[in-house]
């Protein structure tokens, strides 16, 4: 086989894996959008906050240490213990539920009935708030996240492909783990929404707010639930992303790429989020591989957005989105 084709295949595979990460973030968006019609711009920040909390708890960091030190002149930074990974994940998950509850009680509750765009801007405000709050709580250095996931090159794939094509593909173990976890997560979400009482209530709310309300489903509970689930999805995405590149605030900007993923897949479709993620992941890697060197590289910065923009001109509701019907 020609070498270029092999490279392209490797790039495609790696793109698929990167796409999984985008899809994980996009999943959180879709869940919230379906259940409450809120376009949650802050999902990327939730990912960062979840990951930071996990690392902070795991390494026994004292929250707001920097602030406390500044005010009281103390020199505290760590509790001096480390928490087992499982326990840390549970604590971080609980923190995300708390965040969901606070958001529902203090923000969304007061914005019911406002135009969608106001809610959208409120989530941008939340993004900004957490942009300051997360580093204030856990410090602004790059944090190393290690929950014991396999990392580094996958030897099996490397040797197998070497035997087949005479060229070993480089696939990171972590990416494979991420793909598996994402698949499990989606399966769990589908099972949850199909076979549990809360899941059914969730789907009812997604379908029609007032009808759900009239049969006795508590909107407030469902919203807290769905934001908690989105927080949990954010935690999973944060673990995957954080293990790969370390946890820092700029991760949230990368997570913004979940937005074009959503536009491509449609705001209301879970399969859309996954497929959109894969398309964007592969598309931007291949584009960078083929066209990037001609135009100076680093095209990943904008390719996803432009692709989504061009795509939307032809199909404004995305690949799997519900048809937009407008009435006067």
């Amino acid at each position, binding site marked *: 086989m020609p070498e270029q084709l092999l490279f392209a295949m490797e790039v495609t595979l790696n793109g698929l894996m990167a796409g999984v990460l985008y899809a994980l973030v996009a999943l959180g968006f879709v869940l919230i959008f379906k259940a409450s019609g809120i376009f949650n711009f802050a999902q990327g920040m939730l990912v960062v906050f979840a990951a930071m909390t996990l690392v902070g708890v795991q390494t026994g960091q004292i929250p707001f240490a*920097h602030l406390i030190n*500044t005010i009281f002149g103390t020199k505290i930074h760590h509790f001096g213990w480390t928490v087992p990974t499982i326990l840390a994940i549970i604590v971080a998950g609980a923190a995300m539920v708390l965040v969901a509850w606070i958001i529902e009680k203090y923000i969304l509750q007061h914005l019911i009935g406002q135009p969608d765009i106001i809610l959208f801007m409120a989530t941008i405000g939340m993004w900004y708030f957490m942009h300051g709050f997360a580093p204030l709580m856990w410090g602004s250095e790059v944090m190393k996240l290690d929950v014991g996931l396999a990392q580094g090159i996958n030897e099996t794939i490397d040797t197998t492909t070497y035997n087949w094509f005479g060229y070993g593909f480089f696939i990171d173990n972590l990416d494979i783990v991420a793909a598996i976890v994402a698949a499990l997560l989606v399966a769990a979400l589908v099972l949850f929404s199909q076979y549990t009482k809360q899941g059914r209530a969730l789907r009812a709310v997604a379908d029609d707010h007032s009808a759900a309300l009239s049969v006795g489903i508590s909107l407030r509970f469902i919203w807290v639930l769905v934001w908690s689930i989105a927080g949990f999805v954010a935690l999973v995405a944060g673990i995957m992303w954080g293990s790969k590149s370390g946890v820092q605030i700029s991760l949230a900007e990368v997570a913004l790429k979940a937005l*074009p993923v959503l*536009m491509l897949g449609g705001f209301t479709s879970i399969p859309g989020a996954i497929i959109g993620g894969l398309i964007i992941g592969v598309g931007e890697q291949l584009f960078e591989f083929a066209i990037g060197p001609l135009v100076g590289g680093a095209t990943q*910065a904008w390719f996803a957005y432009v692709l*989504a*923009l061009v795509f*939307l001109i032809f199909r*404004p509701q995305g690949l799997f989105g519900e048809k937009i019907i407008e009435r006067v």
Partner: protein
Amino acid sequence: MFYREAGDFKTSYRDDNQTFPIRLDRAGYWIVLFVAFCVIPFFVNDYWVNSIFAPFFIYAIAALGLNILTGYAGQVSLGTGGFMAVGAYACYKLMVAFPDINIVFHVLIAGGITAAVGVAFGLPSLRIKGFYLAVATLAAQFFLVWLFNKVAWFYNYSASGQINAPERTVFGIIVTGPNTEAWAKYMICLVFLVGVAWVARNLTRGMTGRKWMGIRDMDIAAEIIGVNPLMAKMSAFAVSSFFVGIAGALFFAVYLGAAEAGESFGITKSFLVLFMVIIGGLGSIFGSFAGAAFMVLMPVLLKNVLVGTMGWPTEIAAELEFIIVGGLIVIFLILEPHGLAQLWRLTKEKLRLWPFPH
């Protein structure tokens, strides 16, 4: 007692429709203009211009631009930073290529170029609406910044990838470059701001502005009563980008003096200007000023109090700034979705009736 329409007889249609129907407001307007043009320039120093006046004026221009697009025409844009970059780089190229032409024209032409780019990125708004459009404008933001970083022609192949404003004069007075006097900086920004605000006010209260507002309130209904959505949306994008381009050009040439696309015109700039518009008040000229003033003054104040007086590290002050701004956005959206402008309006209503409660 004094803040009344009573006794101030309007005898023509023109009088009846003036921007400031109350005599005291009109007087206040002229006094503010007088103070801004004839008093402050004699007292400003570098600190005041660089940390307060210049950023306030320039951001007010950008906020006016975004307010036309978002507040009046209802098209949410997250690409303001990218469009400011277009203005800045266009101005730079023009300044270098045509050194003999007055910089005022460079800034205006840079605005025109930005308007063209804005229209190009605004075209999808005919098909894409609401937050789909907001995300689509992110394409402009990321693409434009990448373009100015990667294509060396835009920064004239300089080794650092930065653009530096050469020294240019208006009527023999240096207005760009390191040797600029504080008052010259102040004046050129002020002149542009007053011009832009005047144009914005008169556009938004005329037919163009009503078309924009019709599109904002419900585009299909507006189309049915005869507003051409293509013209209305494109004109909103053009005018808005023109103002934002001017702001970008001034930001680079007069205020910063040197700029690098990713750092000076990143996505945080887009958010910042959007926040000015939200906090100030969507669909209000006064709101753009109030929002810009608030967002410029707040960090300065925080820094002076926390870092200067209490000796806290700048890092914490910066984080607190994010928290306060984000929290304020949410609080404003909950309590007063129409922003500072609405508070101002309410105050004026109260003043009119004072000392009676109703």
